[in-house]
């Protein structure tokens, strides 16, 4: 399959903009029209992105579908995109979840529907861009610009404390990424000093051998920005607020995609660019991950609110992803990349199902429910599958990711792996307990007596997620095959970088050759 120079990635990024333009011509009052335009646009975007799965050549670990056009020549900024096994599934996840979020939000948006849809599509542009940008400047542009649609989703369409949550979200993210901007500028300067070339290309930056004290500072600046986004303990406090206040579609996207930008940032930028600092920070970050895993799980146990419970479970689950990343071996990192995907699917799914019951009852409090299984059998079954996936039940997707992560972590840090494994049990406790209180028993609250079960639309929203949950759980090989080579390449890059730092005899020249990224092939 050859795509001679066809800008498939740009098409995926900017296709939603076509929908935005169309929406501008839709009558403000006509909510249905706006929804259909958005649904078709996001569906088309997903269909355009889907063939990437087949076109992506797993045998070749470098970046594929590369596009590189000079943008701001004075600064050496290029419009530079590319995809590897790590970003492949994140892009697919983005396009899929946006589509499902539109479908899921079909009846729940009560005001300014057209603007809501525009915001959602703009968000999709930013998110896809973040995952395929290979120029740090371009990455930063997508990274920052994408904040604003999310800010509007929370601030305009959120619930009571939406202003507080929206502002907290922006302030946290912006202040942490400001220092990353300084670090980016410093890397740009170092690159210029070393090579004489003005470049923000991450592929060029990979070849730099950054000196030691500088490397620690730069890593810290990058890591802070990404850790807030993940969010790692103790930078997680914006997350529950944002999730609880956001509308369902916002929560789905936030949990499903936005949080992955943090972990993706570590794997694409912070770790390979600063391998020695990564090694030095590993004990700290593993400790924080484990604290996050346990802390998130414990907090979940006492949540009276379903949405808040799911939000805190993200803190715990993302802790697993970070643990796997910093195990820095094949199993750990592969598990992390897969788990990013799994978390997007299962937590995105959880927010969708919680949103469905919220739409019917306008409450998310666990105590308000009980015995729902009798009135909404289909809903209960689908809810259960997603819950089990989130718990990590064998034969469902969560198990594969967590298992790989724990194996990887055990090889480098048995203590951390053992403590983290306890959280798997905790997850079963808090999620099943929540499930039990909501679905089993007798219906005590008369308001729940006449709840309508899921119509076809809502089943259609959940069906792709369920399919994926089972597929990855039973036969993960196609996914791991695509992810594997890129992960191997990532680990090699970090390891060789570290060796070069430790061996003062290594000439920078030799290093350049060693760490050379395989030439990306235009397809």
């Amino acid at each position, binding site marked *: 399959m050859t795509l001679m120079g066809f800008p498939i990635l740009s098409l995926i990024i900017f296709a939603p903009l076509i929908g935005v333009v169309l929406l501008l011509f839709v009558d403000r009052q006509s909510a249905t029209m706006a929804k259909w335009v958005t649904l078709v646009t996001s569906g088309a975007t997903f269909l355009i992105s889907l063939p990437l799965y087949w076109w992506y050549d797993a045998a070749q670990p470098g970046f594929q579908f590369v596009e590189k056009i000079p943008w*701001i*020549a*004075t*600064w050496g900024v290029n419009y530079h995109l590319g995809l590897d096994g790590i970003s492949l599934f994140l892009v697919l996840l983005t396009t899929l979840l946006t589509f499902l979020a539109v479908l899921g939000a079909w009846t729940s948006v009560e005001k*300014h529907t057209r603007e809501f849809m525009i915001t959602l599509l703009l968000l999709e542009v930013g998110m896809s861009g973040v995952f395929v940008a290979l120029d740090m400047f371009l990455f*930063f*542009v997508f990274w*920052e*610009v994408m904040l*604003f649609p999310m*800010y*509007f989703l929370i*601030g*305009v369409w959120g619930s009571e404390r*939406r*202003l507080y949550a*929206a*502002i907290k979200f*922006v*302030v946290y993210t*912006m*202040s942490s990424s*400001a*220092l990353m*901007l*300084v670090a980016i*500028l*410093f890397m*740009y*300067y170092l690159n*210029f000093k070393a090579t004489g070339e003005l470049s923000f290309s991450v592929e060029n930056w990979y070849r730099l051998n950054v000196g030691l004290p500088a490397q620690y500072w730069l890593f810290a600046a990058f890591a802070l920005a990404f850790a807030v986004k993940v969010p790692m303990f103790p930078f997680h406090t914006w997350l529950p607020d944002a999730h609880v206040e956001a509308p369902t579609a916002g929560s789905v996207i936030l949990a499903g995609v936005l949080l992955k930008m943090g972990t993706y940032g570590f794997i694409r930028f912070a770790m390979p660019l600063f391998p020695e600092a990564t090694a030095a920070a590993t004990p700290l970050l593993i400790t924080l991950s484990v604290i996050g895993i346990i802390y998130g799980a414990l907090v979940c146990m006492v949540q009276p609110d379903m949405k808040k419970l799911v939000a805190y479970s993200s803190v715990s689950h993302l802790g697993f992803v970070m643990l796997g990343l910093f195990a820095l071996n094949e199993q750990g990192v592969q598990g992390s990349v897969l788990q990013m995907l799994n978390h997007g699917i299962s937590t995105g799914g959880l927010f969708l199902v919680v949103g469905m019951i919220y739409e019917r009852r306008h409450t998310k409090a666990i105590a308000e429910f009980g015995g729902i299984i009798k009135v909404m059998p289909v809903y209960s079954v689908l809810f259960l599958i997603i819950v089990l996936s989130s718990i990590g039940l064998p034969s469902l997707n969560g198990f594969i990711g967590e298992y790989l992560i724990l194996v990887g972590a055990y090889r480098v840090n048995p203590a951390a792996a053992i403590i983290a494994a306890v959280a798997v049990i905790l997850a079963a406790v808090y999620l099943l307990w929540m499930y039990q209180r909501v679905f089993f028993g007798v219906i005590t609250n008369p308001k729940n007596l006449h709840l309508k079960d899921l119509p076809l639309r809502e089943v259609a929203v959940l069906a792709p997620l369920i399919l994926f949950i089972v597929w990855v759980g039973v036969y993960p090989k196609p996914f791991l095959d695509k992810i594997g080579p890129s992960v191997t390449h990532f680990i090699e890059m970090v390891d060789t970088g570290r060796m070069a730092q430790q061996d003062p005899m290594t000439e920078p020249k030799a290093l350049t050759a060693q760490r050379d990224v395989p030439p990306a092939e235009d397809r």
Partner: protein
Amino acid sequence: MIPTFSSADFFAILPELIVFIMGMVVLLFDLFGTGRSTRNLAYLTLITLAVAAYAEVLLLGGKLSAFAGILVSDDYSVVFELIFLTVSALTVLVSMRFLEDRHVGFGEYYSLLLFATGGMMIMASTHSLLLIFIGLEILSISSYILCGMMKDDRASAESALKYFLLGAFATGFLLYGVALLYGATGSIDLRDIRNALAAPAVFNNPLVWIGTALILVGFAFKIALVPFHMWTPDVYQGAPTPVTAFLSAGPKAAGFAALVRILIEGLDIMQPEWSQVLWVLAVISMTVGNVMALQQDNIKRMLAYSSIAHAGYILVALVVGGEQGIGGVLFYSFAYAFMNTGAFAILVLASSREKERVTFRDYAGYGYVEPVLGLAMFVFMLSLAGIPLTAGFAGKFQIFKSAIDQGFIWLTIIGVLNSVVSIYYYLRMVVTMYMLPADAESLNTRAQGSVPLYLAITASAAGVLYLGVFPSAWLELTARSVAMLAGR
């Protein structure tokens, strides 16, 4: 000896000549012209500015000196003068409906605006300290009157008086500094001063240092750097809104234009010293400006404090120096002109004689009442906050990039953190417009449209986005124009 002038002398100052002569024509036209309509005066002013801008383009790329070297025309002056002309043109567009609505329909307004513009242009295109002073005075006196244009309005009168008193004070400092520098070096020409300072005896003369310090104080007043900023919020709040738009973009840029000439062309041997002073001024201006802006409920006051912070960012570029840094001064001034005037234009459009809308509360739900204008305001706020894809980001990026290149890491970190603080109050505008419910009154008072105002807003938004997405051409032009400064 009678000095002889050639036509070449006049060609070099063609834009200034056009602006000054037409300033007088506008005044006469008002006297003998077609009755009470100020529209024609506005059109005449716009044509004047356009023709002057065309003359600037003709001068681009040349390096001319006129009248025995007192006045020059190089790319540096051309670029700055284009900025001034842009600011003035936008101000005219913003002013038209405002003046008719408030019945401040005097011909002097446009005439004074042209004189102020001419004064700014002189400041950017001379090597002579005395001419810088004269240019500054032409600018300042015109601005004092412009501030007090609304004669029946107390705040406007207060604004004019305050500006006049403190401005006169600042000018006194400046002039005293010029006198001392002249006493020590024997010249008012920047190039001669530069040569004189090469001699250690002159360099170590305390008069040089006191004179430099006084000049810096004078300019710090004019461009509103902390701690010489006290007048800014009151003056900006009281002045008619279009005048405020002009004041915060035009004279500030002109102050920087002259300051850069003095420091780079005349006093560059003292760079290690003055850059330390400016380092401190930059940090406190950014910080105080942003922190004070956080607490304002009046948008004009908020923008006044924010203009202090922005002066701080520009000062960072001046501290950094070099082609990239000074280029950043020019680029940022241009970017700021668009985003700032745009924001003020919306305030003007939303207000009317019956109802001034200048507090945050007045804009609750504005984004739904006026979707297009709300969106434009959103863009201006993002640009002021320095969010990517806007001119404000490109400007900050250029400044901080050159700061890192020159090793000013702490200055960069302080600057970047400051711009995070500023996000809070710029977003407050966005929160108000989109996330607070509109009250019944504001729903019913839709702004009365005005073509010139829409034009000003469109032009500003286009400028903000163009400079934000494709900054290359302007970045190159500004860097090239700085390379032409004498002494580089």
